């Protein structure tokens, strides 16, 4: 469904990604973990074309983005939904307008029909109907994440990217968001790539884990494999040790 090969990204003269390979299939949830500043968010953005890649191949739903026509590229990219770290909700629009945005402006749907879908998706992420006419500024962090999730789901994507979905949330709200992700992703048979530092969240939502270090995926495996691995980098990260190869490399 999504295949990335040898992805290199260079930003302002700094090499961020050094040949990343990854695959996500239908109904599979891949979680990418790694220290801050290793290029996790850049990886997602470069797949979406928001950050230019230096070289490498991105294939979405069988369409190679480098060799696709404009329409094919648009079709491939519209298969992807994304939940941004801060929600990235549009401040000037109400909650239902945010949720229905992609339907109205991206797909040209009638606003009345889009509103119905927006209400349905809001219900799916446990948002009450009365919040529909509020503005994002009046919502808590957890609610903003839910609206972001509802917005990402509204366009019925085949793959969803979650950029640190539980960062800045209390443990209870984190659990609620994780549940929503599992419900939305696993039961809808759509692929997902999640970036997180939260190992609790990882254990809840991951089918497959990839460890990104200095712009390279240095380990992949299952959640159980993560606990049993002898890889010193992953071991240090999982055990949250202050001394080890990750900190040595950074120093």
């Amino acid at each position, binding site marked *: 469904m999504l295949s990335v090969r040898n992805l290199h990204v260079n930003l302002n003269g700094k090499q961020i990604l050094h040949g990343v390979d990854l695959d996500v299939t239908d109904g599979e949830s891949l979680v990418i973990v790694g220290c801050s500043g290793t290029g996790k968010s850049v990886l997602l*953005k470069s797949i*979406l*074309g*928001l950050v230019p890649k230096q070289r490498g191949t991105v294939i979405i739903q069988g369409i190679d983005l480098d060799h696709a026509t404009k329409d094919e590229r*648009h079709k491939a*990219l*519209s298969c*992807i*939904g*994304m939940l*941004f*770290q*801060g929600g*990235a*909700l*549009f*401040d000037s629009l109400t909650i239902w307008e945010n949720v229905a*945005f*992609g339907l109205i*402006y*991206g*797909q*040209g749907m009638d606003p009345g029909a889009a509103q119905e879908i927006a209400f349905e998706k809001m219900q799916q992420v446990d948002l009450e109907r009365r919040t529909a006419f509020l503005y994002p500024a009046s919502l808590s962090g957890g609610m903003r994440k839910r609206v972001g999730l509802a*917005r990402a789901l509204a*366009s019925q994507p085949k793959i969803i990217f979650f950029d640190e979905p539980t960062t800045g949330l209390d443990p209870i709200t984190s659990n609620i968001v994780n549940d929503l992700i599992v419900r939305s992703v696993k039961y809808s048979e759509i692929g997902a790539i999640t970036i997180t530092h939260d190992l609790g969240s990882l254990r809840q939502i991951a089918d497959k884990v990839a460890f990104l270090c200095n712009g390279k995926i240095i380990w992949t495996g299952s959640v159980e494999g993560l606990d049993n691995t002898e890889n010193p980098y992953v071991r240090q990260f999982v055990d949250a040790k202050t001394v080890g190869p990750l900190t040595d490399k950074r120093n």
Partner: protein
Amino acid sequence: MFAKKTRIFCANREIKCYNPHNSVDFSGKTLNALAYIGHSTLDFCASCGKYVIFLYNTILHGVRPPYYWKQIFTQLRDVGFYSLPVIGLTAFFTGAVLALQSYTGFSRFSAESALPMLVVLCITRELGPVIAGLMFAGRVGATMAAEIGTMKVTEQIDALSTLSTCCYRYLYLPRILAGLVTLPILVFIFDIIGVLGGFLVSVFQLDFNASQYIKMTEQFVQAEDVISGLVKSAFFGISTALTGCFKGATSSGGSAGVGRATMNAVVMSSITILLLNYILTTIIFSK
């Protein structure tokens, strides 16, 4: 004296210098100054290039459907209608002060009767478009840069792309169209209120005859004077909106970056207005 290869740092960037003649004495200060000029020139050229590409992309995406009419009308309201109070007040006091100051000057050589002519020509030809343009740059250019800059740093513009919406069509084009359409209208209103301000001061403070003042104003003002100001203001409107959008879209570095982008948008728009005013005045009135 430098060795053959010298490491010099300027504005936190290393500049690789190569001196083929060891005997030539370059002082560090001279090289640093030259490097600074070189970098500034390159940065300026790069910014100009990005600005032109931004304009090109806006036009390229703007001419193709879908057109976001709701966004266009919202911008026409926000940019045009909500600018009326500030433009109206500025116009009234500009006209009033112009009449007062001109009267003082003209009375020194008994030419007070030329006052209505001076007020109407100054306002329609120059003060209307330029002062309204500068007020517009301060109010609208800053708003656009701050709004789009905030959207950029909070990933809202990235979110637009992931929702299959072109930011050129949805964000920039409605603003640029609003600048193009509303500033000439605002300048026309400025002209009327400005002339009215001059008239009220002349009649009630400087004891001019009202009917004579109106007659002289009508006699001297020509359609060309008003139209030239409106044409200039259309260019000012486009350049202000384009600069506000460009500065916002290229901002980075959190709230401080948005602040810098907003300031740069106002400064750049104001300078562009003054420069364009000179160029357009030369072209329009050279006939």
